[in-house]
């Protein structure tokens, strides 16, 4: 396998041709400048926004990095947030209306309850003199709520539940 056993002299002469292949004139004049510019750009801000955030912060940076790699997660999270917000609004609405109905019933059961304001009390119960001794619940929110029966069907909302109670003397 020694080189002496093979005559590669002509091949070596031919390979010398490779040394005469030269890059375009002036190519190396800017080469080191380009390298240094790319290094500076990488140090100063060549990184993407997400990469910089990830480098600067820990947990939140990692979350942003996950979002960068899986953009679909952003849409999923936004949808979840909207649904959660909507659910919260509906729940709040229901709880307020339920509270108002409870207040109305409480006010009717004990008109002298101190926590019922005069305005609200006057709004939800009529004076006995006006109704001939019968107090009528005119609260639209409480009266229009559908009533669910044990069978699961809702009662007709056109029926207005009316509370009858003896007028206080």
């Amino acid at each position, binding site marked *: 396998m020694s080189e002496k056993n093979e005559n*590669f002299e002509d091949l*070596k002469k031919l*390979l010398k041709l490779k040394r005469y*292949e030269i*890059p375009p004139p002036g190519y190396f004049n800017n*080469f080191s400048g380009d390298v240094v510019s790319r290094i500076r750009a990488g140090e100063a801000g060549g990184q993407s926004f997400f990469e910089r955030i990830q480098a600067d912060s820990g947990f939140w940076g990692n979350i942003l990095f996950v979002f960068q790699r899986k953009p679909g997660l952003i849409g999923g999270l936004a949808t979840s947030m909207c649904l959660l917000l909507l659910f919260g609004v509906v729940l709040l609405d229901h709880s307020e209306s339920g509270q108002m109905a409870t207040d109305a019933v409480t006010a009717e059961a004990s008109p002298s309850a101190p926590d019922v304001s005069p305005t609200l009390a006057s709004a939800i119960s009529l004076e006995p003199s006006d109704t001939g001794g019968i107090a009528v619940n005119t609260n639209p929110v409480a009266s229009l709520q559908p009533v669910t029966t044990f069978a699961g069907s809702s009662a007709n909302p056109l029926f207005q539940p009316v509370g009858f109670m003896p007028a206080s003397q």
Partner: protein
Amino acid sequence: MLTMSEPATVPDPNAPANVLEGDLVRRARRGDLPAYDELVKRYQERIYATIYHMTGNHEDANDLAQDSFIKAYSALKSFKGGSSFYTWLYRIAVNKTINFLKQRRNKHHLSLNDLDFNAEHDPDLVALISDKTPTRDVNLIELQNKLNEALLKLSEPHRMVVVLHDVQGVSHEEIAEVVGCNIGTVRSRLFYARQQLQGYLADYIKT
């Protein structure tokens, strides 16, 4: 303008310039970019030439050479000084080039640089294209194309050894250090690669 009429040689560790190299490396490790710029200028031609001879494509060689220097800068803190900076840099360029060629396998596209004017006056090349030596008439441009096509037929490890030794003039020992194998492997790869090339270029050389 660069002329590659002389083979690149491995820097002598005892040369005065190498004392300065250590200083440049230390400064570059501290983030001194002008010092690194000096190192790039020192080795840009040899690193570019090696990659160019491996890829046979100027654009690829340009990108890979720049990437090699940038990677070397970012990895400078891990440079322990066990080998010379030049060998370490060469290893980065060689690995980057081989990885690139593996990904680009069977998608070779020659984009050769022009030949230097002096090639026409090289006595060895003149002898090769004279009517005595070759079995058919060729000019230098055709010979250049055939030679590059033949080189691209070699496997990357074999091509690398031929390029480093027969074109760049790097010693067997240095090649072993750069490529990461023993000297015997370098010699056997060189022998096999030359045999292969001789077969591919049989019409252009006297055997």
